[in-house]
């Protein structure tokens, strides 16, 4: 809020006067008094009140979004006979010897999701981190299945990791220490704190409370323990909106002790996902998806047993459900019933269970299939399921012998502290009620926004005498805190983090904090009276205590280089399930017709809300719905009919004292009688991008029902809300775009599943087909492997400086993504049950057609074919007739209808990839197969080639790029290795091996147009169980 607003609303002079001349402890005490003054209340309320409408201004957000990046407009206008503006060259004063200008460097580090570390490999250009990939040496971000012959190896990564680069450069991040909303200094804060520390020390930490998110950082834990040792009465509370409370209690129920399951999907032949979106949700998803895909690499000549089979039982259609071979949509209550039925079938005593709405045959088949593959099966359930379901699933796995070393499921000591976070937050609130909390230090996190509604945390937080907040943004919590300290982004910090299997990754800074951010470590050092110990020293000193002195230096260097500390994963832990699990009564599916269960889940784009201000993620089409810039009540067509709701109708939800209004979005494949609402929206103070986007699901969330709010009353508000999706039509119209069949069909006749009904007279041409010799780039996309996680889209956006256009532009169909993941309900035509539709994902990007229709129609030749088979797009030649897009049957070309790249902040310009032109208004753009990477590799290969005897002077080409030397951004990011890229004329290359004739089920889309696309697909293979085959899949797409 502006200074002006502030002044008229609050007499800050009064506040300042109260503090005038007070120093040290005095200052501190007076601060406590002050916190209770009406002025300060007024100020705080005002912070919200005046804040909200300002943020609400949608135009400001849109225009903000249009203006990301550098503008070439002027250059364009003044083109022709004018000279370029003078440019400066600014060399180093002292050039570090390892820096070669123009050459990128890579650093291994980690980022953290839900508290757990994932490995990153960050590209840095001239000191600016510009691109994030996974660190192949880190267990949470595995690299390719087969080691590359040459070139740099990248690990896979998920959208959060890749997009965190934008998070770091986000100009909305909080940039200064604030005290009562006034600019202040870190030194002032440290003085105050250290004085406060003394006081707290005298009372042994009485009244000192620390609230963190889930912590796995060994260094931070050590610091915390030191703190608790120093202040024995201090209390450490942990609250993470997406925690493992249910799993924990489940384990308790099943084993009598907490244990954390580590899943090895690559060891599983049969997988049953009970409401678990294990391929895209959670800090382990990348690893899990990778291992899962390892069992689904359908290539010519595989045996029947080599492909795993996935059954998914879930309420809301997720990537996992869409990937599954068989899927059953059940409401939460029915899922409970399903698990009991399954357990019963497998001979676990669960008492009498009626099949209810659950398809008995399905259960029968699943049970039998699991039994047949005992020891090689994996039943997994999600955090959204209650403890007893977890317990039952443990029992089932135990029964089937799926537990144990080298089995699909292994158990370890919990990586994060084993505590009930819901309970610990409840305790904190109780303590506040009892006025025990004098000082509350919030180390990261945003509890005011994301604490469950029934704790009314906001009200309680305001009761605390002294509130200190460390955060990336001046968010909802910061607004209510006395002190706000800007947090350093992980890419600016020294720290460490344990991944889901316990492996430690060292977090090292890629750049000095842009906004003088501080880390939790820094803040604790102040409390511990060790001020001045910088992050590097801290982390290093901690690891000195872990790694024996002699070879520490070497080990430390290696750990930094590799990004992981070897041998730190948690040891396996033996657990045995108790004989029987005592189960609560089965609850009814649905109480009344105007009541539904509301399923709360972390959002596939903004997670728990912490990424709300990330334009890339907001604009990323959600995996199934393709919704952007909103969350919505996902509901099945049938239930929508019951409620008489259409897309965009805003419904009023009431659960006890808690209410929320949110728009409806009809999603075939959702279970009836329930709706899904994603967390992370309705932020009041996220920043220009994320504020007032969507509905705040936390308003319904309650500590006793964190994931499913039962029997929520639904009423119409009569209002509607514009929901914007990037794909309007999810039916394939019986066009053979996505092709596929069952595993049996494939084994019997591989080609059959990729055949088309009108490709008979292909390649009819009056001319001799052109001979593409030498290096010829091609891409293959494996539809069996694709899980629709969108990592490719975000990686491409980051690599190729693709702008964010904003909701209004997406609404009129102008999104800019170069690679999109189309989603179809494949069996809409004549599937028996429209509520159990099958889903298909199909990543679509420029096909680099050999007969590219776009090339012939461009009047200025701005798009041309290159000798290595690329369909080049020359921005600086394009005049924007858009004819190429009209003539592109795949509609993969994107147009800069407006100036989407105007610079809004220097920081965002720093983020741009220096090797890719930033496009101006009025030019067409599209996938280039990452031509900048190809060029780099080619130049390297040409230099090599001069001395390489295998290359002859008179030869066709003067270079030879080895397979793996060029990895496209989308390929590198893909967790399932669904994208294969390379030189199709090199017979040994992976891409050549993935094309015809080697893979009979390889096909090109719309080849009947004789476009001869270079991007081809491997038809989707479903490992259908014969007994269920009838119910699913005929060749009807």
């Amino acid at each position: 809020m502006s200074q002006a607003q502030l002044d008229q609303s609050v007499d800050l002079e009064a506040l300042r006067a109260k503090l005038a001349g007070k120093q040290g402890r005095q200052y501190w005490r007076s601060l406590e008094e002050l916190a209770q003054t009406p002025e300060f209340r007024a100020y705080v309320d005002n912070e919200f009140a005046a804040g909200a409408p300002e943020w609400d201004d949608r135009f400001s957000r849109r225009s903000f979004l249009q203006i990301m990046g550098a503008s070439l407009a002027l250059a364009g206008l003044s083109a022709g006979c004018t000279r370029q503006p003078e440019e400066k060259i600014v060399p180093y004063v002292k050039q570090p010897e390892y820096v070669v200008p123009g050459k990128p460097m890579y650093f291994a580090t980690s980022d953290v999701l839900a508290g757990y570390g994932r490995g990153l490999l960050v590209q840095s250009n001239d000191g600016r981190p510009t691109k994030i990939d996974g660190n192949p040496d880190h267990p949470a971000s595995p690299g390719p299945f087969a080691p590359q012959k040459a070139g740099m190896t990248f690990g896979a990564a998920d959208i959060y990791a890749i997009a965190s680069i934008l998070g770091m450069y986000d100009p909305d991040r909080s940039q200064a220490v604030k005290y009562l909303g006034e600019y202040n200094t870190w030194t002032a804060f440290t003085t105050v704190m250290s004085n406060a520390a003394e006081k707290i020390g005298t009372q042994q930490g009485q009244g000192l409370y620390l609230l963190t998110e889930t912590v796995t950082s060994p260094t931070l834990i050590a610091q915390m323990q030191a703190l608790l040792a120093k202040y024995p009465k201090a209390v450490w509370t942990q609250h993470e909106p997406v925690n493992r409370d249910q799993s924990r209690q489940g384990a308790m129920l099943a084993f009598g002790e907490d244990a954390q399951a580590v899943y090895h999907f690559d060891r599983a032949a049969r997988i049953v996902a009970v409401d678990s979106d294990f391929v895209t949700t959670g800090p382990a998803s990348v690893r899990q998806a990778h291992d899962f895909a390892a069992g689904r690499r359908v290539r010519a000549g595989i045996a029947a047993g080599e492909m795993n089979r996935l059954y998914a039982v879930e309420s809301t259609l997720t990537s996992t459900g869409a990937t599954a071979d068989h899927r059953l949509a059940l409401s939460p209550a029915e899922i409970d019933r399903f698990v009991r039925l399954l357990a019963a079938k497998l001979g676990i005593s669960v008492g009498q269970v009626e099949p209810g709405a659950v398809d008995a045959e399905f259960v029968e088949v699943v049970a039998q299939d699991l039994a047949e593959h005992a020891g090689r099966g994996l039943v997994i359930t999600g955090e959204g399921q209650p403890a007893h379901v977890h317990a039952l699933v443990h029992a089932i796995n135990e029964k089937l012998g799926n537990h144990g070393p080298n089995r699909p499921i292994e158990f370890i000591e919990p990586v994060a502290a084993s505590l009930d976070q819901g309970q610990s937050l409840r305790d904190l609130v109780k303590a506040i009620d009892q006025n025990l909390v004098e000082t509350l230090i919030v180390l990261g996190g945003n509890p005011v926004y994301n604490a469950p509604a029934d704790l009314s945390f906001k009200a309680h937080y305001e009761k605390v005498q002294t509130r200190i907040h460390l955060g990336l943004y001046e968010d909802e919590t910061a607004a209510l805190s006395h002190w706000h300290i800007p947090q350093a982004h992980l890419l600016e910090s020294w720290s460490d983090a344990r991944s889901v299997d316990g492996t430690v990754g060292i977090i090292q800074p890629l750049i000095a904090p842009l906004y003088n951010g501080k880390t939790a470590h820094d803040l604790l050092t102040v409390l511990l009276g060790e001020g001045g110990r910088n992050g590097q020293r801290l982390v290093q000193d901690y690891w000195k205590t872990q790694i024996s002195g002699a070879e520490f230096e070497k080990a430390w260097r290696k750990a930094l280089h590799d990004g992981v500390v070897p041998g730190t994963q948690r040891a396996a832990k033996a657990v045995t399930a108790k004989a029987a699990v005592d189960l609560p009564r089965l609850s009814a599916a649905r109480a009344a017709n105007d009541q539904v269960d509301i399923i709360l889940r972390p959002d596939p784009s903004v997670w728990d809300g912490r990424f709300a201000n990330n334009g890339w993620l907001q604009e990323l089409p959600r995996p199934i719905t393709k919704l952007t810039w909103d969350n919505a009540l996902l509901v099945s067509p049938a239930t929508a009919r019951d409620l008489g709701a259409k897309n965009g109708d805003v419904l009023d939800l009431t659960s006890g004292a808690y209410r929320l209004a949110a728009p409806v979005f009809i999603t075939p494949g959702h279970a009836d009688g329930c709706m899904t609402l994603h967390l992370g929206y309705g932020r009041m103070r996220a920043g220009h991008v994320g504020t007032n986007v969507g509905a705040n699901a936390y308003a319904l969330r309650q500590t006793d029902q964190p994931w499913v709010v039962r029997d929520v009353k639904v009423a119409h508000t009569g209002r509607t809300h514009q929901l914007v999706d990037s794909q309007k039509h999810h039916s394939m119209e019986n066009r053979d775009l996505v092709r596929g069949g069952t595993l049996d069909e494939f084994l019997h006749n591989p080609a059959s599943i990729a055949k088309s009904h009108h490709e008979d007279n292909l390649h009819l041409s009056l001319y001799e087909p052109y001979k593409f010799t030498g290096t010829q780039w091609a891409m293959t996309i494996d539809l069996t492997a694709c899980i629709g996680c969108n990592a490719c889209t975000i990686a491409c956006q980051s690599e190729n400086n693709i702008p964010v256009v904003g909701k209004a532009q997406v609404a009129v169909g102008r999104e800019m993504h170069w690679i999109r993941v189309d989603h179809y309900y494949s069996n809409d035509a004549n599937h028996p049950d429209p509520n159990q539709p099958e889903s298909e994902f199909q990543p679509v990007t420029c096909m680099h057609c050999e007969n590219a229709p776009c090339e012939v129609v461009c009047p200025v030749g701005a798009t041309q074919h290159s000798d290595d088979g690329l369909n080049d797009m020359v921005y600086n030649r394009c005049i924007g007739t858009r004819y190429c897009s009209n003539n592109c049957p795949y509609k993969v070309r994107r147009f800069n209808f407006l100036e989407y790249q105007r610079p809004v902040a220097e920081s965002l310009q720093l983020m741009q990839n220096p090797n890719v032109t930033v496009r101006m208004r009025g030019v067409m753009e599209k996938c280039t197969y990452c031509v900048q990477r190809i060029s780099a590799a080619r130049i390297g290969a040409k230099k090599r080639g001069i001395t390489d005897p295998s290359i002859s002077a008179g030869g066709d080409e003067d270079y030879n790029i080895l397979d793996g030397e060029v990895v496209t951004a989308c390929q590198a990011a893909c967790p399932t290795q669904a994208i294969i890229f390379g030189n199709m004329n090199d017979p040994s290359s992976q891409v050549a091996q993935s094309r015809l004739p080697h893979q009979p089920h390889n096909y090109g889309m719309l080849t009947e147009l004789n476009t001869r696309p270079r991007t081809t697909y491997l038809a989707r293979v479903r490992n259908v169980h014969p007994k269920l085959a009838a119910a699913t899949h005929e060749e009807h797409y």
Partner: protein
Amino acid sequence: MEMPKRSRMQVLKHGHDFESVTHIVSAFPLTKRPPRGWFLAFGAAFSLMLVLMYSVGVLFLKGVGVWGINIPVAWGFAIINFVWWIGIGHAGTLISAILFLFRQDWRTSINRFAEAMTLFAVACAGLFPLLHLGRPQKFYYIMPYPDTLGLWPQWRSPLVWDVFAVSTYGTISLVFWYVGLIPDVATMRDRASNRLVKTIYGIMAMGWRGSARHWHRYQTAYLLLAGLATPLVVSVHTVVSFDFAVSNLPGWHTTIFPPYFVAGAVYSGFAMVITLVLPVRAIFGFKDFITEKHMNNMAKVMLATGLIVAYGYIMELFMAWYSANPYEQAVFFQTRWQGPYAWSYWSLIACNIIIPQLLWFRWVRLNPYVLWIVAIIINIGMWLERFVIVITSQHRDFLPSSWDSYWPTVYDYTLFLGTLGLFFSLLFLFIRVLPMISIFELRELVAHHTQEEAWHGANTGEVPPGTGAARGETET
């Protein structure tokens, strides 16, 4: 010539002499003060033109994103209007060139006007290819010139052909029109009283003195130009149709486009001529020069071309069905018939095929009011035809995933209305300063008649009126 019902069906009403025709036609341009009506009309048109200026200003400031276009519908109103205006132009050329070559005397009193219309229509059309560029400041990339890049236009692209087709068309039409004007401008020069006006007309007349040699040269030049202009009638819209036909988009990728675009062009062109001529005829008392015969003939041309267009529509459907191409069929039988833009398709059928069948009735062809309304409807219909072709084909093509819709914004509309403003502003200026009917050609008609009369006179013994005046006139 043989003229049944000469009482009505003649190209020039009986009883005019050289003086009278000259006077009637040249009167308006030479009056000192035009009536208030003219100012009102011109004012209205001009303010519309200012709207155009505004719309274009915003367009250049913000980019084509101010329109409703998107991916997949990357071409919107701009292209529709372009094709529509170009089409309208064709009538003028057809009338003045082809009818001239066929010695159709009924062209005489409308060709000047029709040609003017052509010019202004082409002027309006010419704007759009430029405006619809994403980077209009780089339009020159599309022209062949020796740049410092060592690059040339991409000759396989129909858009490049367009540039040449349209610019040629514009040039030839302008020259043809101007040459046709010369003798009349001379007359104006001689009749004008104000010295300045005299001088201006004088310069335009290029020293025309009406000598036998002048007439001889003039006739040759005019004939040659007519010969040059004739192929353009066919070529221009053929090339324009290639913009669509050459692409692979279902609904565009059709071999029948060239002929039926040309037919459609003439169709809409004549509709526009009628729309404009009938009021003019009424207001300026040209009923004697623009007679029922003209209306009748023009209506017949519309009927004929209308039927060709109808044939085109039917053939499209037939080929879609016969080709058994699923994408083709989807566009014609689903998208256009049932899709969100079905209204445009069906109203197009009504406007272009059903309603024009009225023209089979003689009374419709001869009733200025009904004829005028039909003409207007056809104008609308032809615009809708382009809407259907451009929008419906694009908004649902091969991949259902990329299907999207197109809704024009205020800037789309203002641009279209704006060009109407430009068109009419130019038209009213033309009416004000130049003879809108070819005077000397009228005189030829008069001469023709007088001979006829003379022939009758010889039999009846009466002296035909006006001959003396005519003789006097020839001395100028």
